[in-house]
C-alpha cells in the first residue's frame, strides 16, 4: 500500500523534511507508471491498433489500389456475403482448421510421448522431427507440390514403379483429394510445434505422480487420461489457441499447392481475400472478408481464455 509523505512521523527537533513534490506519492507513482508504459502503448497504437482500425474502416469503403476511398457503408459486406464463393471459402476454412488441428494434436502428442522416453538416439530424433517446422513454408510446400505432381512427382513415380497404378493420380487436382492433400502437407509441416510444446509440458509433470498411480494399479491409458492430460492442460490450451489462429489464417499451403482450385474445392477465406484485394486490387471488398471472420475468431479466443482463467 502506498503511503504519502504526510503519513511519515517526524520526531520533534529533527531537521525539516524537504518540500514535498506536488501531488501525492500515489499520484506520482501512477504518473510514472503511465510514463513507463507509454513507449509500449505508442508502439501498440502504431503497429497494432492503427492498422487494425484502418483495415476495418477500409471494409466500409470502395477503396481500390491507387484510388481514394469513399464510404459506402455495408455494401462490401453485402457483396461478399451474397457471393457463393465466400460461403465455400468459409466452409473450407473451417474444415481445414478442424481436421488439421485434430491431426496435429494427435501426431504432436504421439511425438511428445515418444520423445519423452529414454532411448538411444533420442536427441537426434528430436532435432530430426523438427525439420519440417524449421523449413520455410515456401520450400516445404514446393517440396510437397513436386512430390504430388502427377507428371513428374515422386509419389506417382513410386506408385507406378510398384505397379500399383497405371495412370498418375491427381492428388491436388481432384476435388476429392485436393483438400485432404493440402491438409496432409500442412499437418506434416506444423505438427512438430505441437510435439515440442507438449514435450516441454510433459517434462514438467512430476514423475512421483506416475509412480503413485502405478502403485495404485493404474494402467497406461489411465495415467495418460488422469495425469498427463490434466498436467498438460495449460500447454494444450495455449497451443490449441495459437495453432487454431495460425491454421485458420493459413495462406501458404493452399496458395502454393492449389491456388484454391480445382473449382474452389480448396478455396479458403485468406486466398479469397488475397484474390479480391491484391489480384483484383479491390481492397474494400477484400477487407470485408476478414472483418466478417473476425467475430468467429474473437469468440474462440474468448472461450479458450475463459477455460484457462477458470482453472486459475
Amino acid at each position: 500500500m502506498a503511503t504519502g509523505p504526510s503519513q511519515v512521523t517526524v520526531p520533534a527537533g529533527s531537521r525539516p523534511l524537504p518540500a514535498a513534490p506536488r501531488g501525492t506519492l500515489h499520484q506520482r507513482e501512477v504518473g510514472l507508471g503511465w510514463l513507463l508504459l507509454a513507449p509500449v502503448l505508442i508502439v501498440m497504437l502504431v503497429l497494432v491498433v492503427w492498422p487494425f482500425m484502418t483495415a476495418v474502416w477500409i471494409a466500409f469503403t470502395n477503396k481500390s489500389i491507387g484510388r481514394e476511398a469513399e464510404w459506402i457503408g455495408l455494401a462490401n459486406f453485402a457483396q461478399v456475403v451474397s457471393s457463393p464463393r465466400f460461403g465455400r471459402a468459409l466452409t473450407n476454412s473451417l474444415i481445414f482448421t478442424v481436421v488439421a488441428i485434430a491431426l496435429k494434436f494427435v501426431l504432436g502428442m504421439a511425438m511428445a510421448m515418444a520423445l519423452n522416453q529414454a532411448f538411444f538416439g533420442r536427441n537426434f530424433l528430436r532435432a530430426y522431427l523438427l525439420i519440417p517446422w524449421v523449413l520455410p513454408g515456401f520450400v516445404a510446400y514446393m517440396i510437397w507440390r513436386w512430390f504430388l505432381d502427377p507428371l513428374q512427382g515422386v509419389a506417382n513415380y513410386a506408385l507406378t514403379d510398384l505397379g500399383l497404378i497405371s495412370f498418375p493420380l491427381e492428388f491436388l487436382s481432384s476435388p476429392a483429394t485436393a483438400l485432404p492433400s493440402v491438409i496432409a502437407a500442412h499437418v506434416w509441416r506444423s505438427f512438430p510445434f505441437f510435439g515440442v510444446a507438449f514435450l516441454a509440458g510433459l517434462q514438467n509433470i512430476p514423475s512421483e505422480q506416475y509412480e503413485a498411480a502405478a502403485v495404485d494399479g493404474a494402467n497406461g491409458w489411465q495415467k495418460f487420461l488422469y495425469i498427463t492430460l490434466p498436467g498438460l492442460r495449460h500447454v494444450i490450451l495455449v497451443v490449441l489457441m495459437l495453432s487454431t489462429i495460425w491454421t485458420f489464417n493459413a495462406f501458404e499451403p493452399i496458395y502454393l499447392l492449389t491456388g484454391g482450385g480445382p473449382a474452389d474445392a480448396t478455396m479458403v477465406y485468406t486466398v479469397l481475400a488475397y484474390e479480391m484485394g491484391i489480384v483484383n486490387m479491390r481492397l474494400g471488398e477484400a477487407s470485408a472478408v476478414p472483418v466478417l471472420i473476425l467475430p468467429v475468431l474473437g469468440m474462440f479466443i474468448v472461450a479458450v481464455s475463459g477455460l484457462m482463467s477458470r482453472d486459475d
Partner: protein
Amino acid sequence: MRHDASSANERTSVRRSRRHFISMLGMVAALPLAAACQQASTPAPKAEPAKPAETKPAESKPAEAAKPAAPAAAAQPTTAPAKPAEAAKPAADAKPAAQQAPAAPASGTLVFWLYKTRLDPLDKHRTDRIMLWGQQAGVKTEVVEIGTSDYGKRVPAAIESKTLPDVLESGDEWVQLLQPRGLVSDLSDVFQKIDAEQKWAPAAKAVSTWPDGKQYMIPIGTSGNLLIARDDLLKEAGLTPPPQTWADLFEYAAKAQRPPRTYGLGQALSNTSDSNRFIDMYQAYGLRIADDQGKKATFGNHQKEAVEVTQMIADAYTNKKIFPPGVLTWDQTGDNDAFQSGRTIFAFNPLSIPAWVRDNKPEMLPGIGTYLIPEGPKMRVQGVSSVSMSVRADSPLRDKAKELLLFLYDKEYYKDFWPKSQYGPTTEAHYDNEAFSQSWLKVRVELAKNGKRIGWPDLQNEAYAEMQTSFVIPRMLQSVISDGKKPEEAFTVAAEEINTIYKKYEQG
C-alpha cells in the same frame, strides 16, 4: 514495521532518486520514439529543393550530372522538357489517388524494374544496356529483376506505398491498370520519335495506343500466345501440322498422344492466367464478354456458344483425355515444364518454350513448330500483347527515363536483342532481322503485322481484367470437369459473376 525518521528520510530520498532516474530513463526512451513517429508522419524535407535551380522540373539535372558526361552520352537523343499539358488524363470516371505531377528535381537513383524472362542471356543483355546508359548519362541506375509471378504482389504494394519504380517494364496489362489511376507518364513524344525513325508495326501501335490516342507505354517486343506443336510427333502419327481449327486441334492431340508418356494438350485449366487462353476459343465461337463499349456484360446472351465450347473442352478432358493430369491446379510454369520435358504435344505459349529449348535442348528445336492460334466457326482470335516500358508519372527522373527509353530503342542494339529474345518485332525496321528467319520465329512477324489487341473482339478494360483475374471462365470449366456440373448450370453461375463485375465498374 517501525521506521525512524532519518531512515525514512533517507529511504524517501533514495526512492525519489530511483524514481527520478527511472523517469529520466522513460523519457529518454520515449523521446526518440516520439521523434521517430514525428518523422514518419511528416515527410522530411529534402535538402536539395532549397536550391532554386533544382525547383525547375524540366531543366533540373541530377546531382550526378555535374560529373563530366562520357562523350557517348552527348550523342544520345534528348527529350523535350516535360510539358504539364501532356500529363496523363485519367478516364473521367476514375478517381486517381495520384495525378501526374510535374517532374520533380532530377536527382537520386533511377530504378528500373526489369521484366525477368526465363532467358538469362536476354535479361543480362538488357541489364547491361541499362547500366551502360546510366554510366554514360551520369545517372545512378538500379535494375531490379521481377519475375512474372511477382508482379501481382509487388506492383499493388508499390502503388499503395508510392514506391513504383521510375521505369516499369511489365506486361501491358499492368500499364492498363496504372494509366486510369494517373500513375504513368504520357510517352507519346517518345513513341513518335521512334515511329519517325523505325515505323511502328501495326500490332505494336494497336497495343500501345489508348482510346484517347496517346501512348503511355513503349513496347520492347510484341508477344501473345501462339500454338506450339511437336511437329515431329504429329508427323509420326501421320498428321500434317498445324491444326486449322479448335476442333482439329483436339482431334490431332487425341491421335498423336501416347499417355501416360505423352499427352495431347498441355494447357492449364487452373486458377492461373494461362487458363484464360480458352476465352479466345469461346470468342472464336461467337461468344462476347461485354458490349463494344466494354460497359455492359453480354456474356449471359451467349449460352448456346458457351455450352458448345464447354462441352468440347470437357469432352477433350474426360473422354479424349488430351490434358495431362494436374492441369486443374497447374501454376504458370506448368505448360512450360510439361512441354520442355517432352510430355505434351501442344501448348499455348508466348514462345518462351522454344526459346528455352533453343538454349537448353537444341536437338529438340527442329521438331517444334509455332503457329497462329486455331480458328473457330466465327473468327480467329489471335491477340497480341507486349512487354512494355512505362514511366512513373511523378518520377523526379522522368525526362531521364525517357532518354533511357530512346537509348534502349537504338536500332543497332535491337539487332543483337532479337536473337536473344522470344518476342516479336515492334517496328517495321525489325522485320528483316535474321532472328525472324528462323522457322519458329517467323510467325512473330505475321503476328506483328496482323494480330489484334489482346481481348479483341472485346474491349480490355478494368472490368475485363477483373473477369480474367477472378478466373471466371477457368472456374466455369473446372466446375464442369471436376465437379460434374452441367455446362448450363456452370454457365449461369459464370454469367452472374461477370454481370456483377461489370456492374461494379458501371457504377464507378
